[in-house]
């Protein structure tokens, strides 16, 4: 699994970076920069929380694409 941000919905509230600082940091304008690597299993609960708590529902968990 990996985290993806819908850049049109996102308006830079920044909650996600507070809940998951291991993988999300904010740029100089308050918008999240997400580590594109697949999520380590131990961070999955925090990632789910970041997804659920986003006030504008701009962040989602997606299955990592398997490269053939």
């Amino acid at each position, binding site marked *: 699994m990996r985290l993806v*941000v*819908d*850049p*049109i919905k*996102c*308006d*830079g509230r920044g909650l996600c970076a507070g809940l998951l600082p291991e993988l999300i940091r904010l*740029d*100089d*304008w*308050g*918008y999240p*920069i997400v580590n594109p690597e697949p999520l380590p299993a131990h961070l999955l609960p925090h990632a789910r929380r970041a997804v659920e708590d986003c006030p504008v529902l701009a962040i989602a968990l997606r299955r990592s694409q398997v490269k053939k």
Partner: protein
Amino acid sequence: MPQLGVDFIGAIERSGLVGRGGAGFPVGTKWRAVAQRSGGRAVIVVNGAEGEPRSQKDRLLMTTRPHLVLDGAFIAARVLRARRVILYIGERHEKARHAMLRALHERTEPERGLVTLAAAPGRYVAGAETAAIHFLNEGIATPTTAPPLPFEQGVDRAPTLVQNVETLAHIALIARGGRPTSTLITLAGGVARPGVLEVELGTSIGDAVRQGGGVTEQPKAVLVGGYFGSWMEPAEAWKLPLDHRARLGCGVIGLLPASACPVCETAGIMRYLAAESSAQCGPCFFGLRALADACTRIADNRSDGRDLSRLNRWVDEVPGRGACRHPDGAVMFLSSALRVFASDFANHGSHDLRRAA
């Protein structure tokens, strides 16, 4: 109209034709995707928005060869079993619109019956595929987050082909047994005869400039591909073949005269690109504005000395974080400026003093 072979999409694929609007996507692949889903409902969008400010090739083609563009559009309609053809022409390109409409009146009744006209807003992003579809569906010419992709659900939720007018002209030539061996470019800046040229694919930029009458002044740098392209050193650019591997983009070749200031020029283009953000995505709207402001402070000699390091950090952070490729293109342009004009950016403070002396 020419007769089409049973496997016309195969003929497009074998010709190697790629889109001439800027993205360079393989045309056969795009047609196959629409053909598979059409079911007689497909929509063809003839993209003559030409939002790139320095480019003139699409409007010149529509003005001087409107039937060739229409041939390509109606071939697409036949092969993809389309229900509608929409002429999406830049609202400022009046001559092109008149020529296309005049040509349309000379076509057969069944062809004319497929066609409607739409005026593309005169904005940079209006020609982007999803922006065109968004405009035709809802009147807002801003890009949207895919999916669904245009070939799945585009105009009126039908499978949609959005194709640049030069690409459609090549389709018409392929249908007549030709091969796409030429391309249209626009020469701009310090060249004797600025404007549109048709050159053989693979012609070097140096040869193309010679065909345009040569340089008016020794160039400091060459902007290959327009505002979404890259600055190059003249010696490197001169040898570069004009084909679609060379990031030709929409085909604009701009020559920056040695007497012009590359930092000021870059800052001006960045301000334009920042203003052309459709303001939907934070990293694009705020990021491009910040990049343009930092460039402008350096150009105006009022930087606090940290702007260059800010720019170098931001060009890594901004790309890939918008719904469309607008921020990516703007950052690619700026990155090339920071590379080719590194000493001009680092030593810009002395520029006004030198000029005043």
